[in-house]
């Protein structure tokens, strides 16, 4: 494949990944919170980020997540929700990139750590925004839900990443 073709393909693939992440965000927003805890999410969008991380690499995972958060905030969100998503999203993406680089973790460990960091990021914003540490009471539930959803998301992402045809990542 010529370099020109490959960069066109890259743009198309990234566009598709961003679109998928947007759809996941939208679906997630439609699911009513099972337990009313601020910041608790299933993390469906993280499937796209973890798959991107393992198939396309660190830079694309970061890029796709930043674009996704910007678009979601413009489309459905507010300045407050943007502050929450960008903090949680960046913290978890950076940690997942670092853990993946060690080569010691599968998608499951990487995604579980990412799930927790995402939730902790949201608590941090709540502490800063509301000037209260009272939200720390939500930490255990966000922590455990981060582990559980992280493991599930890691499993799904791992299966998707291992089944994607090689042609898509080249």
């Amino acid at each position, binding site marked *: 494949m010529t370099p020109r073709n490959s960069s066109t393909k890259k743009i198309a693939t990234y566009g598709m990944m961003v679109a998928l992440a947007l759809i996941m965000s939208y679906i997630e927003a439609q699911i009513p919170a099972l337990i009313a805890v601020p910041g608790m999410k299933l993390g469906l969008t993280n499937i796209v980020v973890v798959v991107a991380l393992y198939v396309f690499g660190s830079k694309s995972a970061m890029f796709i997540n930043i674009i996704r958060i910007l678009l979601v905030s413009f489309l459905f969100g507010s300045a407050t929700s943007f502050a929450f998503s960008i903090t949680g999203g960046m913290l978890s993406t950076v940690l997942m990139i670092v853990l993946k680089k060690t080569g010691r973790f*599968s*998608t499951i*460990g990487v995604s579980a750590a990412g799930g927790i960091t995402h939730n902790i990021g949201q608590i941090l914003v709540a502490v800063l925004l*509301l000037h209260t540490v*009272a939200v*720390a009471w939500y930490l255990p539930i966000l922590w455990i839900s981060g582990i559980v959803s992280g493991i599930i998301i890691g499993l799904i992402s791992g299966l998707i990443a*291992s089944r994607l045809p090689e*042609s898509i990542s080249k």
Partner: protein
Amino acid sequence: MQRRPVHSDRMLGMDNSQIKVKKSDIVLIVALLVGFLAMITVLTLTKSGGAYVVVSVDSVEVAAFSLDQDITYEIKGFDGGSNTLIIQDGKAHLEDSSCPDHLCEHMGKIDKVGQSIICLPNRVVVEIRGAGDDKGFDTISS
């Protein structure tokens, strides 16, 4: 469909059909679960019955009530929002919130020191404090 070779470096930790869970994954997840248990233990051991309910709007404490008295209080939240604080039988909860998500109404009834109900859209925090704690409100309003 073309399959990826088993030892491709992009495929770290995986083969064609399944995920290879590594020892580090297990160690990490166990450590995270231990962290969870430690957190629960600390919170449970330090939990005590509260005396006051303190209401803050956009980081400013606007009201404080004793948990002993049954009251209904309308909180004027950020940007025209409102919530109704109800104290009944020594427990506090929110009702009739103007926020779009109504999450705050489902956070249950609180009565332990450090517990809180938060309405993010209205920037309202309702927090329980102990008898020995500074009520806060008096110092701020004076």
